């Protein structure tokens, strides 16, 4: 019982991080058609910013969460406004550009912080464990699950129940008609891109509780996000959630039960989904 319970919690907590990371990428790609591979680098930057604030300067983790999130958002916006806005519809160029920004951000981080990986950090209130099913489980992982649940509902409410959300969905479904109705999609694009970058940054500081900031995570975490995007489907919260949970749980149970095959599980799931349903499990359906 302990093994099953702990593995479930492992899968869900890791899955939540994947969901938070991927949803920003999914919305950006779904609305704007922009593939922002620098998403993982924004995660990394926020993670380091949080470390500086909490570990080096002794500030509150919650303040670091806000600051790290905002900084990632602003960097993302700068990339979009200064560069990506000139490359709408040019996928190859977007990929090359954002890969370039991965290297830029990684090397700036290397220059500032050196190559040593930093340790995971979290607020004192989330330190420690609580007893569950005869064992113990880290409190900060439960917090991550809780944050993920709140954000799921928050994002759903934003996209489904607000005017802004309606515009975003309309833009994803039919750009031309939306523009013809006099809606300034350009301004909406900036907002959506900012939201995506903010989510990357937010996840970076939340994820730092488990992983700790390091330079190489810009690539590692991007790979996870892309796998979830492919599995879940683009442009929908439901798709990102299902994809993330599926990958998280398969990975958690797979590694625990068959550790020798650890490096394959995520990719096996992705391959199967691509063969059965190439658009992903729950992609956004363009409506009338």
């Amino acid at each position, binding site marked *: 019982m302990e093994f099953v319970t702990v593995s479930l919690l*492992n899968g869900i907590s890791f899955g939540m991080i994947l969901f938070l990371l991927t949803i920003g990428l999914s919305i950006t790609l779904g609305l704007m058609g922009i593939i922002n591979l620098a998403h993982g680098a924004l995660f990394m930057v926020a993670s380091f910013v949080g470390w500086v604030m909490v570990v080096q300067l002794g500030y509150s983790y919650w303040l670091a969460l806000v600051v790290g999130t905002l900084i990632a958002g602003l960097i993302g916006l700068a990339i979009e406004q200064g560069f990506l806005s000139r490359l709408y519809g040019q996928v190859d160029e977007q990929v090359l550009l954002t890969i370039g920004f991965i290297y830029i951000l990684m090397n700036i981080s290397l220059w500032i912080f050196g*190559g040593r990986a930093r340790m995971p950090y979290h607020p004192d209130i989330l330190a420690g*464990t609580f007893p569950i099913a005869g064992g113990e489980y*880290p409190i900060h992982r439960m917090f991550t699950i809780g944050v993920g649940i709140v954000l799921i509902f928050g994002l759903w409410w934003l996209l489904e129940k607000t005017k802004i959300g309606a515009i975003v969905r309309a833009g994803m479904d039919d750009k031309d008609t939306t523009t013809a109705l006099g809606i300034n999609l350009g301004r909406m694009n900036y907002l959506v891109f900012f939201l995506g970058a903010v989510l990357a940054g937010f996840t970076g500081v939340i994820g730092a509780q488990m992983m700790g900031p*390091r330079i190489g995570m810009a690539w590692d975490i991007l790979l996870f996000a892309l796998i979830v995007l492919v599995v879940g489907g683009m442009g929908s919260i439901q798709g990102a959630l299902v994809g993330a949970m599926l990958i998280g749980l398969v990975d*958690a149970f*797979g590694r625990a039960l068959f550790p020798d095959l650890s490096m394959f599980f995520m990719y096996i799931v992705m391959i199967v989904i691509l063969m059965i349903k190439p658009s992903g499990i729950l992609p956004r359906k363009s409506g009338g």
Partner: protein
Amino acid sequence: MKKLLILLSVLIIIPLAVVPFISGCAPTAETEEPVRIGALVSLTGDIAFWGPNSNAGVAIALDEWDHKVAGRPIEYYYEDDGSTDAVMALDHAKKLVEVDKVDVILQPSCSGPFLGMRDYCNGLGVLTIGQGWRGEFLPYSMSQEEIGIPASQRYDICNTGSAAQIDYAVGKYVYEELGMRTAATLSHDYETGYQTTGGFVHGFMDAGGTIVQQQWAPFGTVDFGPYLAALKDADMTFSWFTGPMMPLIAKQYYEFGLWNKQPLMCGLNDSFYEPDLAELGDWTTGMYVVTEFPSGYGTTAMHNYVSTFKENTGRYPNPCTGFGAYVATNIYLETVDALDGNTDDTAVRDEIIGSTYKTLKGNMTFDPEGYPICGAFVTQVDKMDMFGETDVLTFRVIKEFSNLTHPGYYTKP
């Protein structure tokens, strides 16, 4: 008169114009060909902090030699190996050999880059010396069979010991002196993981212990929760990961409430050092860590080296290359000095094999298989006052090994 003036001008001016040029070309005094030391160090990638530490160690060694050996000046060239980038390591090895014309290369730290450049260097007869312990160093007796070249064409030297060599002795120690009877392992799923863990497992089992479980985690693992959920009960857990993963797994091991239930031992350490322990905190006290170079080891040589390193860089040396690059440089320069400045690769290699060197961790003799017969330490994390600081979380020596020999080459079970 005019013709005389022109003649005089030619006889005076032209020689005056040419002589300096001729002077510049002709050897004015005896100029010695420099000894060129090359190194592949990690400047980018996951272990990018090792590279500057390697360079700092080499710099200290060169200062101690006054940048000269047997009357020849020393030049140092280094290139990036990308931490785990075999292609980059090979490209840069070629540059060091073909452009910089180095006499020796300090090997990359990680397996991939090392294996990427090893055969190229061996094929050309370029001597390479490790900057720290190696996992995947093949003994010379295996070379003909396993990698298709005879020992005479091997020019790669394993510096400071092999993973299996040290962790085998640790396995026996854990059973015989720490009293553990069962152990679980959780290690990195690649060559060096097999060597470190294989050494420990065989030593432990040969002493009479039982291994209840072996788990392997691949590169890129950030969440060790699944492995910890599946971890079987045992007297202790032996774990080895390279780079940033080992401190991560120690933290998650603690967070899952296993720290006091099942002691964790970090196999041959290349990850933890003082800044990491300081960040992790006091709960790390008591963790067993196998290491080659504990900063607090009480010898004068170690004290002087760490003091100088701290003075020059403001930090402690990292446990692998921070010390190993210094040791490797000294081994090479002592050998060249003994050969009166001869840097011929075959001559230097043959001189090293069978020779004994005094190093930071004691005497080291290279056996015919290319392994150094050397020592290592088992430590426990503890607070010590050292180098002008109080309560530094560091590695307190609880067991010292000497004259360790290589027990065998292990693959994944």
